[in-house]
């Protein structure tokens, strides 16, 4: 259901917010040329027909051809989606690997300097514009210190800065969730029971506390991946990475509508799929939710 609505919404928004024929034809086109394009692409048909036509073909995997590339859209996207996926997953891993230990530490020593530093990082992370952070990293790490390459996708090192630039924005959410989850669990009765059994702190923390506190975090991670993929457009532009975000930006600039529509639909589908994955993970990790 969501999928259909998303596709309708994106289709409508894009088609209705301007005359695609004009956009395609370019600024200097004559009205004759515009009419020609309109006929050729079927823009003169009622909008509902246009949508149904597109949707019918989309279900079969045919997203049409890109007027710019003169290739099937599916192929164009397929070439580039790997980069975006790689970036998204790496950014997620970065955010998670950073925030969970820090969140746990902050929860064991609440209101100490560790806790305050963690919260400080989290608050600052939410305030920095990601594209700016990316640019600053390029200058400092790429040019002044010459530690990392600043564009291209040849090696893993190319991905370090984009990963950090994309991922840091997710750190505050994960860190806060881990911290508050841990604080809640640590004051719960079953932790007291564990200690009364004679378990050492290390075991109590990892086996009992973290296991309980991590459930919402993992669920969030799945959804967060969706957001990261959507937000990749900015980072890919800054670092000139040829993923679908960059492709989307270029296509928007070129009024390459089939590509744009397909990418919007694809990203939304991935998001919906990830929310499903998140629910499944929740059920898997929390025995109380599983239905026997």
């Amino acid at each position, binding site marked *: 259901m969501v999928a259909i609505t998303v596709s309708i919404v994106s289709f409508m928004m894009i088609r209705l917010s301007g005359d695609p024929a004009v956009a395609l034809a370019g600024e200097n086109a004559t009205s004759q040329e515009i009419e020609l394009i309109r006929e050729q692409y079927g823009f003169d048909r009622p909008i509902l027909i246009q949508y149904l036509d597109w949707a019918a073909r989309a279900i079969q995997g045919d997203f049409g051809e890109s007027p710019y590339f003169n290739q099937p859209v599916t192929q164009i996207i397929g070439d580039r989606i790997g980069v975006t996926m790689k970036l998204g997953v790496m950014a997620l891993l970065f955010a998670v690997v950073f925030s969970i230990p820090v969140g746990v530490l902050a929860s064991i020593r609440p209101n100490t300097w560790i806790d305050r530093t963690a919260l400080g990082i989290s608050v600052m992370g939410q305030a920095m514009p990601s594209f700016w952070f990316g640019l600053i990293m390029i200058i400092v790490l790429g040019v002044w210190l010459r530690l990392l390459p600043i564009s291209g996708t040849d090696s893993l090192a190319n991905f370090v800065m984009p990963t950090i630039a994309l991922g840091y924005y997710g750190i505050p959410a994960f860190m806060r969730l881990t911290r508050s989850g841990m604080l809640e669990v640590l004051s*719960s*009765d*079953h932790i*007291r*029971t*564990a*200690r*009364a*059994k*004679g*378990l*050492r702190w290390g075991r109590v923390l990892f086996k*009992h506390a973290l*296991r*309980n506190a991590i459930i919402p975090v993992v669920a969030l991670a799945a959804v967060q991946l969706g957001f990261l993929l959507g937000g990749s457009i900015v980072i890919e532009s800054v670092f000139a990475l040829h993923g679908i975000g960059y492709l989307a930006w270029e296509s928007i600039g070129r009024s390459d509508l089939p590509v744009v529509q397909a990418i919007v639909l694809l990203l939304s589908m991935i998001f919906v799929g990830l929310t499903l994955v998140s629910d499944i993970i929740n059920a898997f*990790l*929390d*025995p*109380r939710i599983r239905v026997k």
Partner: protein
Amino acid sequence: MNPVIEVKNLFVDLPLPAGMLHAVRNVSFHVSRGETVSLVGESGCGKSMTALAIMNLLPMNAIRTADVLSFEGRDFLQTSESEMADIRGNKMAMIFQEPMTSLDPCYTIGNQLEEALNQHRRVSKQEASDRAVFLLEKVGITAAASRLKQYPHQLSGGLRQRVMIAMGLMCGPSLIIADEPTTALDVTIQAQILSLLKSLQTEFEMGLILITHDLGVVARVADRLAVMYCGEVVETGTTEEVFGNPIHPYTRGLMACIPVPGKTKPGEKLGSISGIVPTPIGELTGCTFRNRCPNSTAECVYSENPLNEISPGRAYRCLLSPEACAAGWSQS
């Protein structure tokens, strides 16, 4: 007499923003094998804190001091945290009040039971699960073997509490501390759990510290009791002595609150103690019961008020003689 645990003049202080909270003051008692000692009192009187103090599971900023705090001859005041962890769940076990939340929801019953044993003994998986099954049957749980694979949320409160008891017994402790073990359970289940605890105690020759606010429970199960009020012990004695002849006004007040079948006439008002419990915070002098006691005088405000021992184990905390103490008390 070789007590399993001996406590003398235990103090627990908690620094709060409003001042220093003296949660436990001057508490002394001892428990031997096969004996049940009950700490009785209302919520907030310090009895749970006492139990946590023995186990050293107090909040991080709590301050614990005592003249004597020894367990099986071992001085707990000098014991390190890792040595304490070795003793907890092993020689000394604690059962808590809320069975619904005392077990980890993410692991099976069997996992948590075996964990208690594996922490302290080198046993094989089979031995651990055999012991778990053995104890589950001992606490009256049927189909014990299949229960091992179940999760806590699949069991009722009564069953969970039995599992908690079984968990406490995994390593064969010499002392069990039960903190309000039946308060959160149905009345019908309460009786079962209590008699279970009693029979297990006899069978395994353990000491039992039973913490409760329910005098009915005390009468049924305890050998000796200590009545606590506002962090202090106000009366001690055997169950027969205290129930037969309560001295301290607070104890008398508590007894008067219980309707006695046969004696209390229908429509008759139940006893109550007027006034509210003060918070033991800041500088404390004199008797903390003074604002609710019908016998209180100006002396009660500042004089030192130690425990009066009238015979070994039988004591009460008041400046007056036993007769004078009991006299002024009337049922409202």
